[in-house]
């Protein structure tokens, strides 16, 4: 089965459309959305409806910290920009959409594959996997051989051998690689809706669960329009700028 893994959509319609079209062209058979469907971007309602539509067709979807944020009264732990967007986003959503978010799971385990938004050791605490130490901690916290997670808006591939050594790799777009069964893997496809590695192109990954072939992709999309919409919605200008610069 060819699984498309998309994470950190962040209400970016243009980026999500581009990634979904890209995945469909490559005959993706199943979809997983690893949370942070909303927040930052100007199209939360459209993005949620689209994800709900995919769930109706069997897609997996997880809770992210920004999704949870709109359900909570005041998120003092969030930075000012994120809080401003959460407030705005809450006003954009209908009750059905909020109810959908309320019921999202924190993690899903498929056959030997763990899907989680932030990390495997304490998914609800939203700590980042942003180095080999954290990646090792996460891989050791699950029985699954392959973990897909988001939260960090940069594409990365971590791997851990039998000896427990963890390696980090910055993936190259559009090159498939087979994931050896002799080690653990932690895959961060990178963000669909708000990449932060200096490259504004949207990120997602395709994984063939039978052949164990993984491909990362960078998908160029109309970031100017997405950025313009952020400004028009009255959201912080820095968030609009971020889409153009990719970080």
């Amino acid at each position, binding site marked *: 089965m060819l699984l498309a893994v998309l994470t950190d959509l962040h209400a970016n319609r243009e980026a999500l459309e581009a990634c979904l079209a890209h995945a469909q062209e490559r005959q993706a058979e199943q979809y997983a959305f690893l949370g942070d469907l909303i927040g930052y971007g100007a199209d939360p309602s459209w993005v949620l409806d689209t994800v709900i539509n995919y769930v109706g067709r069997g897609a997996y979807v997880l809770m992210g910290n920004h999704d949870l944020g709109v359900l909570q009264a005041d998120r003092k732990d969030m930075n000012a920009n994120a809080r401003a967007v959460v407030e705005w986003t809450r006003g954009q959503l209908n009750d059905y959409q909020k109810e959908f978010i309320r019921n999202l799971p924190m993690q899903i385990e498929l056959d030997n594959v763990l899907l989680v938004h932030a990390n495997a050791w304490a998914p609800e605490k939203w700590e980042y996997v942003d180095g080999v130490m954290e990646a*090792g901690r996460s*891989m*050791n916290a*699950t*029985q699954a*051989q392959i973990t897909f997670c988001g939260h960090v808006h940069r594409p990365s*591939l971590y*791997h*851990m*051998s*039998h*000896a*427990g*050594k*963890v*390696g*980090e*790799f910055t993936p*190259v777009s559009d*090159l498939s*690689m*087979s994931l*050896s*069964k*002799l*080690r*653990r893997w932690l895959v961060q496809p990178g963000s669909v809706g708000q990449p932060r590695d200096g490259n504004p192109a949207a990120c997602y990954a395709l994984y063939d669960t039978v052949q164990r072939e993984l491909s990362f992709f960078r998908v160029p999309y109309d970031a100017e329009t997405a950025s313009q919409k952020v400004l028009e919605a009255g959201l912080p200008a820095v968030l609009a700028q971020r889409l153009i610069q990719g970080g």
Partner: protein
Amino acid sequence: MSNNLPKSPNQSASFTAPISEQAGNKSSEQSAASSEKPSSPRRLQVGMVVDGYRLEEKLHMGGMAALWRITDLQERYRSPEGELPALIMKVPLMFSIEDPTAIVAFEVEQMIMPKLKGKHVPRYYGAGDFDAQPFIVMEHIEGVSLRARFDDSPLPVEEVVSVGIRVAAALQDLHRQHVIHLDLKPSNIMFRAGGAAVLIDYGLSRHDKLPDLLGEEFRLPMGTGPYIAPEQVLGIRNEPRSDQFSLGVLLYHLATGERPFGHPTSVSGLKKRLYRDPIPPRDHNPAIPDWLQEIILRCLEVDPSARFDTAAQLGLMLQNPDQLSLTARAEKSGKDGLLSVLKRRFHAAGVEPFAKYSMSDQLSQSPIIMVALHLSESNTELTDDIRMLTRRMLQTEPGARLACVTIRKTSRIGLDEGIVQGGQNMHVKQLVELKHWARSLQVSKDKITFHVLEAHDAAAAIIDYAHNNNVDQIIIGSRGSSTLRRYLGSVSAQVVAEAECTVTVVKQRRE
């Protein structure tokens, strides 16, 4: 753990071990992954069927893997012409599970081989599941490895050069596919019936665009004692010119019958090559021409940037030794004096690993650009335009090497002595003209070569030359379209249609 050369002349299956007694630093941190060790595979025997492949004959047993000749009972790789490929199965010896290198090397090979294409690598057909029986199925390359020729060294110079040209072409092809072999040695080189070199065993290799599982796992040098490059000794695994060093060792051995750096097995023994220069090949074998010594010693330079920029440029020089600018290396006799060795040793003691390069960057910065010229007085405007374009190319790619080529038309019929003499004069005249054309480009001598090709079919000669010398780009002029040219077809059009590389056509401006 041993790092001996495999004894068998057959296609070697052995993974080279890291050069260390205890390569796998057992982490104190107990990993969950370690609970998933693959179950012990069955003992393989002739006649046994594994995943639809029948084991026919054990071809080779190495330290880390066994090689079996197999028959695919399901005939899954039948070609469109109905032929079934000759196959072998490489099976890692998983009882060496305590030796992490064997496993990681197998993972590396399984990751890299499916990415490789072309005649210089064994074709990859498939891999077996690690849960049941891990294996890789690949093309069976007939014949014996270059290892078999080593016992007869020193070999005639022509044979040494021919091996060098063919292996350099294979390396260039591999590097172009983003892979550095990192364990080039005689037992890992085979030859197809047509003569093309095939590089086997990718257990220590590095793919520029895939995770380096070995580099992450082991901090100690990995390679084979006699052949490992100095930067590999320091743990650098992304320098394509490391393969050039190994090829230099191999050519040295074939030409002299001696190993330039012996056969060290300890890390300190390996580090010696960072400061101790080898005995010049001609001291061993005076029959070796100075230009070959120049080429071999240049491959063996400690600093990768002092070697040839690319394997293609090395191949070009082996094919055109008269174009090589000789340095002190060519005439060197005896090893360097104690003082300079001590200086280098002092320097080597504190040496940091060399700056890291991306392989694709390096290859793209050192292209071979071929300019095909037709020099005659009637088209100086066109050759001026070609020179202008060439200058622009050289400005953007200062590492480029320029090969200036012109064609001297010959008839197909044999020539008598007098005409040959005249031809010789003609040849020199054209060479002089070529050099004159290039003079104002001010390319340094070691970055430019000149060739007068004698051929009946100019386009075919240009295409052949580009192919044989791994040319990256051809610049050629087009003299516009006369009726006759349309009828006969122009040289440039044929080159554009048939060359394997990029072709830039400079057109004569129409009035």
